[in-house]
């Protein structure tokens, strides 16, 4: 939500005029943005709320939608919509994309103008990112092979599994996407991304072995198991996502598969390191309301960010980016928070889109990470 400072200014002007404000934190449209991926549990969502409040520096109260998105479904809301409701519960204003300027105009007409309205510039709001316990940007993001759709996935949580011992949380969370061919049960591409959840403050323990996964068919419908493994990294640790793009055939549309993932993490505070094995149901159906991994849609909006590198120093800095888009571009893709986009960060923009299709180099079979079919473990 890049327009939070605008909302904050209105909130400060009207909160004492018998108007209440609520931001409704909802499911993430582009998982992976700034390392944030959808919470699996209510406890995780509560921690995300606290992190978001700190990062955005807002004092506007935030509540959460249910994990199933009941509020957004009831409102049939767009990703960043706004509504004004009168004291009796009747809707009096709505807009599909939150716009502080028009909201202020509405409140001025409804409640009255304020003397000396708060200006965004006066708020001096800066995004504050929690300090990661390990470096970012050491593992290059994968180039997506084409337009993909987010799949429905479900973690096997402890209560579901009926385990007696306390299971570790999902430190790394799965984002799975598939192209149209794979969704329709044919041979296509499957993207698997495992993102460390910032709420747990952990990092990968690379010397202990990489991340591996296997996909099996619990219904034994003749699906060949698929396994994959990250390469060996020379650096000891980082917090970058572990990503795979594999050739994939689900056998049939809507197949329900089981994914197992193994990895080792260490706590940022040095309290523990642990190997983890976790399971997901991977359903070959499109998730409602899900868009694409962070980066894909951006290309359509702004094109290649490196084209703004006017002085040729390999960085598209804030000063070089178009004024109207600099904030959103840096907000989403400046992974190391140096107020510039470098080539690695920009790689996220090179995904196949309408604008980049001609230039984009699809991932070829022999370039795929060490994923292979058969075997399993």
């Amino acid at each position: 939500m890049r327009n939070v400072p605008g909302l904050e200014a209105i909130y400060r002007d009207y909160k004492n005029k018998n108007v209440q404000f609520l931001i409704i934190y909802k499911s993430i449209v582009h998982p992976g943005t700034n390392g944030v991926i959808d919470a699996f549990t209510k406890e995780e969502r509560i921690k995300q709320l606290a992190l978001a409040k700190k990062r955005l520096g807002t004092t506007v109260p935030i509540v959460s939608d249910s994990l199933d998105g009941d509020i957004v479904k009831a409102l049939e809301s767009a990703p960043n919509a706004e509504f004004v409701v009168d004291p009796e519960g009747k809707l009096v204003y709505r807009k599909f994309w939150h716009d502080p300027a028009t909201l202020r105009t509405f409140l001025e007409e409804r409640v009255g103008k304020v003397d000396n309205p708060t200006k965004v510039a006066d708020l001096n709001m800066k995004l504050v990112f929690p300090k990661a316990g390990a470096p970012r940007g050491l593992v290059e993001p994968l180039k997506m092979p084409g337009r993909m759709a987010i799949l429905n996935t479900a973690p096997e949580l402890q209560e579901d599994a009926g385990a007696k011992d306390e299971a570790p949380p999902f430190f790394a969370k799965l984002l799975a996407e598939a192209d149209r061919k794979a969704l329709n049960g044919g041979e296509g591409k499957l993207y698997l991304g495992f993102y460390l959840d910032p709420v747990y403050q952990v990092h990968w323990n690379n010397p202990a072995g990489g991340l591996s996964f296997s996909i099996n068919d619990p219904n034994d419908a003749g699906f060949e198991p698929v396994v994959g493994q990250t390469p060996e990294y020379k650096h000891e640790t980082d917090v970058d996502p572990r990503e795979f793009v594999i050739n994939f055939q689900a056998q049939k549309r809507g197949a329900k598969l089981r994914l197992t993932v193994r990895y080792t993490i260490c706590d940022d505070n040095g309290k523990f390191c642990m190997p983890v094995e976790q399971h997901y149901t991977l359903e070959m159906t499109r998730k409602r309301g899900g868009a694409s991994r962070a980066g894909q849609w951006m290309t359509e909006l702004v094109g290649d960010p490196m084209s703004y590198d006017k002085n040729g120093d390999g960085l598209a800095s804030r000063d070089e980016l178009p004024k109207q888009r600099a904030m959103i571009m840096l907000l989403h893709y400046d992974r190391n928070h140096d107020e510039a986009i470098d080539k690695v960060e920009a790689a996220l923009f090179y995904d196949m889109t309408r604008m980049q299709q001609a230039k984009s180099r699809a991932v070829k079979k022999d370039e795929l990470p060490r994923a292979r079919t058969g075997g399993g473990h």
Partner: protein
Amino acid sequence: MIYMSRLSLLLVALTLAVPVCAQQSFVERMNQGFRSRSPKAGEMLPDAAGFRADGTPFALKDTRGKLTVLVTGCLT
């Protein structure tokens, strides 16, 4: 000749208009979907539940009694 130059101008105009239209259609499509499905001004806000930052239950109907501004977002 006049006919040809007019045709050329039309083609140039169409070529320039395509990328703009493509971008507008994405936003407009989303806006149209919102306008047709989302509750309209004058209608009662439907009720649905979530939870507050401290974990306690929250429902849209809890906002009654004051003029309320609701903004949805994923706060990334």
